């Protein structure tokens, strides 16, 4: 157990890498979710089957497989393009950080498409009509009336995705991202203590999910502050 002390700084750096991937993926997945929901609700008809396909494929395929497709697929494509431009190029790839962040953001985005769509439809039409009757223009109507009510409905589902997303970051070690799984591997090769080193990884993730859960609970309380107390 004492052996962990020498590796604390490496675990810390690994945690920062995880948080970096998480931050990028979180922003992107909200973007994909909003775009998907908008396409579902207001998009032209030819777009509907494409959005359905996106949601079905990314929800029904193993996360690991999607990550492998993104990482190795982008490598093959980039290498082919690179070689067409300059025959001396041997191998090109997207760094695991970006390929990983992109892959896990698309997975969460598929779930968020459905969550945001349902939230949009769940807003009481009466309040929209009331706002319109009061003469609110479309833009303030969206930001002052629709968005806050949508957010309240979408939050619990969004929270589940935010937690799955942090757990998905562990997969990116499989394509070579140097985060805490990698730190554990290095530490094990020196100390021969796999149980201890992987348990440290588990507790780092547990700490991260605990923090995210408490942030979400705060957000939910804030989003519901105008609700009547029942």
């Amino acid at each position: 157990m004492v052996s962990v002390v020498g590796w604390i700084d490496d675990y810390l750096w690994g945690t920062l890498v995880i948080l970096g991937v998480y931050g990028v993926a979180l922003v992107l997945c909200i973007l994909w979710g909003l775009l998907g929901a908008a396409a579902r609700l207001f998009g032209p008809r030819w777009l509907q089957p494409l959005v359905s396909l996106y949601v079905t494929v990314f929800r029904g395929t193993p996360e690991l497989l999607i990550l492998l497709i993104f990482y190795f697929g982008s490598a093959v494509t980039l290498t082919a393009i690179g070689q067409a431009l300059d025959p001396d190029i041997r191998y090109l790839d997207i760094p695991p950080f970006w390929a990983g962040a992109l892959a896990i953001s698309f997975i969460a985005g598929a779930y968020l498409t459905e969550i945001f769509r349902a939230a949009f439809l769940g807003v009481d039409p009466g309040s929209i009509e009331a706002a319109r009757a009061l003469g609110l223009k479309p833009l303030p109507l969206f930001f002052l009336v629709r968005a806050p009510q949508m957010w309240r409905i979408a939050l619990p589902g969004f929270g589940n995705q935010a937690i799955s997303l942090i757990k998905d970051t562990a997969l990116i070690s499989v394509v070579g991202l140097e985060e805490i799984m990698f730190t554990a591997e290095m530490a094990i090769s020196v100390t021969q203590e796999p149980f201890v080193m992987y348990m440290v990884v588990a507790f780092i993730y547990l700490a991260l999910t605990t923090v995210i859960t408490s942030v979400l609970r705060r957000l939910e309380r804030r989003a519901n502050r105008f609700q009547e107390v029942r």
Partner: protein
Amino acid sequence: MGLNLDLILDTLPRLMSGIGITLGLLVYSLLGGLVLGSLLCMALTSKKPWLRATARCYVTFFRGTPALVQLFVIYYGLAQFPILRESPLWIVMRDPFWCCVLAFALNSGAYVAEIMRGALSGVPKELGEAARALGMRPLAIFRTITAPLALRLFLPPYGNEAVSMLKTTALASTVTLMDLTGVARTVVAQTYAPYEIFISAAIVYLALAWIIGRLITRAERWASRWQEAGVQS
């Protein structure tokens, strides 16, 4: 850049050879998860505070950490203990297949326990009270009233859990198992055609997920066979 269709057709039989392990992992993990989940659910709703706290810690740990990390703790981690290595259990535990089953079942148990607890708490208390007033025994109340009603609430989220477990079995490929994803990774390493092979594998997973969905829908229909026609709950 076109997709190489011949390559897909050539590798499809090889991919199929991985389905057996994927399904084996799925079935054993789900069964293990159901047994463990039932026990944990009893512990979560128990009257003994220490039992409730222990079960709560278990569920929090397994739901709050990535399945990949859990698998590595079990597959690589348990070998650290000489006591385990010398015990007869080691014959089972050194096999990556059973390591995966153990890890996935422990993981599924935590989710199943929460789903069961939710389903049981969704059954109106008054029904049980009425049955008690009629003089029914607790076990009979559970078997004939609470359980059948809770089953209807249990099945839809359990279907999601089963599909999620199917996706989790892909992690087995990281500990050398030749499941669907494992075979696909080997073929890609040989042919370097990631799109063709991985997308074929993805289609097989989607088909399996669809079948699971159909089975659960059937089970749901069976569980609500006493519902009046046209009444949706």
